[in-house]
């Protein structure tokens, strides 16, 4: 029981962390609340299912094609749909919701609402400290850890990362320092979508794939980023594991009340928003210059 809780928390938390990092990167930089973020996640899950089960491609090819395709999709969506109306946050929220609905309806139309499953990328289990752990769980954990480290390195060590953080701090001054803000925002969107796609690749064999699968993670991610502080990468990671722990505990200890986890999550979000609008590691955005 305990080991199950630990493993599930780590895997779920890892997936949420990948999603939440992307979500808060794009919020921190472009001030865009991308409610279609988990729709890209869903698109990648469907991509994995389609390439592996329908076309019978290998694991590596499927992963590469899926992540690339979804990233390009995200870039196109950002450039043609979101970027033009970036200044009006209500319009952006509406646009991203409409985009998510478009994804949902398209998948519903093409693949129907049936639940799809993907086989484990590596079958079997191994024993660690006398605990049996599915290899798929281990693989997911490994990929999540590597990706988080890579993102961290990109953000702190590379020129692109510095540009991204500078833009997040102050887009106008970043522009004056010779950073192309639109290009940086586009790159940020690319990284964010790629993270969502990787999260989907990691978790698709563990979860079921269906056209409404973007709803539940979206609620959780909103809670996580509010808890950790909108725009803070560290906050997103820590918030992801806290929320995952709560979710797994509710799920394993009271299976009948599974739907209550969203209510608890929402309650947490409301309390955090009211008591400490900046979140645990909040970045308080100064009033934008007009």
């Amino acid at each position, binding site marked *: 029981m305990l080991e199950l809780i630990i493993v599930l928390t780590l895997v779920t938390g890892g997936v949420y962390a990948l999603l939440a990092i992307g979500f808060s990167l794009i919020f921190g930089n472009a*001030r865009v*609340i991308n409610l279609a973020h988990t729709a890209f996640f869903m698109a990648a899950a469907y991509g994995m299912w389609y390439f592996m089960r329908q076309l019978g491609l290998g694991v590596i090819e499927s992963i590469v094609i899926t992540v690339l395709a979804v990233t390009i999709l995200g870039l196109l969506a950002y450039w043609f*749909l979101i970027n*033009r*109306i970036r200044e*009006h*946050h*209500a*319009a952006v*929220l*509406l*646009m991203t*919701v*409409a*985009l998510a*609905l*478009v994804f*949902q*309806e*398209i998948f519903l*139309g093409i693949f129907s609402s049936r639940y799809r499953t993907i086989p484990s990328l590596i079958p079997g289990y191994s024993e660690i400290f006398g605990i049996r752990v599915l290899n798929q769980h281990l693989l997911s954990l490994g990929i999540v850890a590597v990706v988080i480290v890579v993102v961290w390195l990109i953000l702190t060590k590379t020129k692109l990362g510095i540009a991204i953080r500078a833009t997040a701090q102050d887009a106008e001054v970043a522009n004056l320092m010779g950073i192309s803000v639109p290009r940086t925002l586009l790159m940020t969107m690319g990284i964010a979508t790629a993270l969502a796609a990787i999260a989907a690749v990691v978790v698709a064999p563990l979860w079921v794939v269906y056209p409404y699968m973007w709803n539940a993670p979206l*609620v959780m991610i*909103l809670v996580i980023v*509010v808890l950790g502080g*909108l725009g803070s990468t560290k906050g997103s990671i820590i918030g992801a594991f806290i929320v995952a722990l709560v979710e797994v505990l509710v799920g394993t200890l009271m299976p009948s009340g599974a*739907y*209550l986890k*969203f*209510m608890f999550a*929402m*309650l947490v*979000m*409301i309390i955090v*928003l*009211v008591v400490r*609008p900046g979140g645990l590691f909040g970045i308080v955005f100064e009033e934008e210059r007009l």
Partner: protein
Amino acid sequence: MLRRLLKDFRWGLLPVPGRLIALIFFVALFIFPLIVQTTYPVRVLTIANIFVIFAVSWDLLSGYTGQVNFGHALFFGVGAYTVALLNKYFGLQPWATIPIGTVVAALVGVVTCIPALRLRGPYLSLLTMAFPIMLVYIVMAFKDVTGGEYGIGGIPRLASTPTQEYYICLAAMTASVFIMYKLTDARSSLVRTGLIFHAIREDEIAARATGINTIRYKILAFAIGGLFAGLAGVLYTHVLRATGPSSLALTMSFQAIIWVVFGGIVSIYGAVVGVYTLYPFVELLRRTLIGRYRLLVMAVIVILILLFMPEGVAVWIRDKIERECPRCKLTNAAWRRECRACSAPLR
């Protein structure tokens, strides 16, 4: 009195195409059930009338006052469930449930705005989005009281025939839209709320600096928004004779936003046009081959509108057919060469 009305009609209404179209449209709405005798179109327009109240109340709160509410279905659903519960457990009839439900929704509006007053922009939208979702789970948790996902049925009709129901809803819609139009009219000399709502949206700090108690007016906006959205929910429940969790769903909130954005945000007539265009359109789609994809069609329409007509269809059309006189600020038809009052050249 009559002479003054006639004068208004002759000089204030006839030369302005927008107002003329609005008048013709309202007259058409009033005689519609007399011409069309079949039940279905009358019923669609009855519900459209109700949704106009809902959409305009969202526009008042989010468009005019700038408190972008992504959970407007909260008020709608609270009104609907209040009516249903009162009727199921106390056997109250429409004349009692309608005012009670409306007032309860307004009170909920006041209560929600207490946490909402601290937040602004996207944070406020997220917070308001959370409330109806939570309420849905509460409804699900108390299945024996609220009927869970099946909702509550068997609520008495508003009136005995569909035509009577249509006229009741039309009257409610006309009255509500007129009241909200007056409340948001920034040029009004009777009520100051319109001007103050605009001020709060444009710059809250500046509004406070000029001595406006913005907190009080934000609470007022939430109360009015809740009141009219609640009225819509109450009427909707009585017309459909049932209520369910769908009245609280996120899609309900987003529908209001979609209608208003389609017609034109921060304009009462935009919301009206949005509902009367999109709602019957989607109902028509339901009966055709692509009825399965009506959500997709809606979403694509929203995306296209946001990209190419961000001011909304109604506002876009108005700008095409009307022009403001550069000298006396009077509205003229776009095809006139000179202003109808001061004869200043218009182009």
